[in-house]
């Protein structure tokens, strides 16, 4: 087997009228990993997925799936991919089982194999009881699961998941996450778009942050977080009046300037991660006579990464 990554995109550009939805996007997704495309609404995530899944042709740039060009060898690419878009791509009037069998046969399975795979997937996704019902009677979570099952029917090597949990309740989301983890354990390569930072953090082994059609940061979640300041120390003082003293005591531990707020008992400080840091801080404060009511060390979140890189917060509230 060659060393060709699962997905390679180079300089993708796609314009819709005057809008440059993709503006020179580069991407390399290693085989057998979950790769997260993170970005706000309108950043170009969906356009990227539509180009990579052969639905639209890029204006310039190239993309290859297992070495096959998405524009020149679209049919070859289609044999290796599965696509689950933002909206359930199902026939509302057919039963869940009939949908899977239809999509299986259109994915080049024999009728017999399509039926067998349909029943396997219905079982696996907990839809066996609903298999004989028309999809229009399904709940949102059931549709998403059936939709994902449909994308998996022909064992795709690369699966595109475009915002798979947008609009799902927490339990349906947790179930989706479990399924994603199982898939990657089976060796499938997943490209996942999301505007939920915790989702990318939970699932993806690498993340590309996209804004205005370009990748503005790329790497493992931990590296991205480290790049914006490692760990954060959160200190709650017993007395507001101790803030200035506490700031002096913390100065040697901090990576940046500390500006104590005299009207708050809470101090947040960027620190260099090290073992026993919290203990050392508490000891130093105790020596200086500062009483501490709470102390916590947390890793910088992807929210911090996002805010630092794009200058605005992720637009989670738009859809939730």
């Amino acid at each position, binding site marked *: 087997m060659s060393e060709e990554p699962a997905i390679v995109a180079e300089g993708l550009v796609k314009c819709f009228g005057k809008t440059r939805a993709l503006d020179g996007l580069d991407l390399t997704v290693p085989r057998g990993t979950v790769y997260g495309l993170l970005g706000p609404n309108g950043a170009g995530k969906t356009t990227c997925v*539509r180009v990579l*899944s*052969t*639905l*639209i*042709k890029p204006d310039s740039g190239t993309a290859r799936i297992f070495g096959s060009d998405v524009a020149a060898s679209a*049919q070859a690419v*289609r*044999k290796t*991919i599965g*696509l689950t*878009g*933002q*909206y*359930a*791509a*199902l*026939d*509302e*009037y*057919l039963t869940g089982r*009939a949908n899977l069998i*239809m*999509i299986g*046969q*259109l*994915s*080049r*399975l*024999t009728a*017999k*194999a399509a039926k067998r795979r349909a029943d396997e997937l219905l079982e696996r996704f907990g839809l066996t009881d609903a298999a004989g019902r*028309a999809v229009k009677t399904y709940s949102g979570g059931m549709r998403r699961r059936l939709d994902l099952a*449909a*994308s998996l029917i*022909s*064992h795709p*090597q690369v699966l595109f998941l475009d915002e798979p949990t947008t609009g799902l309740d927490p339990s349906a989301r947790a179930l989706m996450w479990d399924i994603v983890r199982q898939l990657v354990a*089976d*060796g*499938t390569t997943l490209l996942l778009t999301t505007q939920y930072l915790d989702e990318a953090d939970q699932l993806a082994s690498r993340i590309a942050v996209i804004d205005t059609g370009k990748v503005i940061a790329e790497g493992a979640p931990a590296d991205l977080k480290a790049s914006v300041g490692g760990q954060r120390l959160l200190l709650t003082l017993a007395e507001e009046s101790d803030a200035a003293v506490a700031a002096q005591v913390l100065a040697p531990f901090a990576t940046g300037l500390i500006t104590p707020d005299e009207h708050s008992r809470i101090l947040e400080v960027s620190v260099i991660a090290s073992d026993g840091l919290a203990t050392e801080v508490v000891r130093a404060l105790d020596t200086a006579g500062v009483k501490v009511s709470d102390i916590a060390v947390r890793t910088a979140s992807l929210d911090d990464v996002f805010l630092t890189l794009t200058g605005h917060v992720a637009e989670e509230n738009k859809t939730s």
Partner: protein
Amino acid sequence: MTALTLPQSDLTTGRNAAAQFVGDVWVLTKRSIARIRNEPETLSNVTIQPVMFVLMFAYVFGGAIGIGGGAYHSYLIGGMLGMSLAQTAPGTAVAVVSDMSTGLIDRFRSLPMSRAAVLTARTIADLLTQVIGAVVVAAVGLAIGWRIDNGIGNAIEAFALALLFGYAFTWAGVCLGMVLRSPEAAQQTGFIIFLPLTFVSSAFVPTQSMPGWLQPVAEWNPMTSLAAATRQLFGNPNPAAAVHAWPEQHAALAVVCWSAAMLAVFAPLAVRLYRNKGR
């Protein structure tokens, strides 16, 4: 990686392109038929509607329309057949628009299936509903006194011509559905196109009764050719035989030419529109 690959015996990739195309069309046609079984009321345009129109023309307008010899009830059915089949095209357009507006089409376009299969399956399913329409028109015709007076062989030829004609219109409906954005727009545009097409023809009145400037339009209307051809083949009253225009004198040939021309234009255009959708 072994879990990812299916055995070759589970796949149809070894079959040739034509076999794959036929297989895809069959799978998708079954889908459309399942839809009709689920919502039989979608068939009203080929069941209730033709019955209504036949009865209305036979008993309300018919008495006031002179056809220059012969019974209007016998004259009516040839025109009715053309109208009932051609007017399924707006329904085709509505179905195509609805399909295109769902994520399902994106899924189809991401599968290694034939590009032309989705639209072809739509037209095959609609051809099957047109067969139902033809049977309904013939049955209600027989009930009001229409008869096949020229042998069963010619009658079969008449039905075959009507279905060929109807099938060609289905592809026009597909194109309409591909360029319009909402089912409502498809319904209304379909109405605007198909109403004059039906009524500025000899479907219900002889073209001789129209003003001189309108006669050539009606004479060259494909609907007129179909009505004339079927009336001739059924042995029904056919005033068009007295018109010297080419489509009236060679009605059956004209129907074949019109249908072939429409298929040659609209089928490739529809597939092209489908391919470029969303680009």
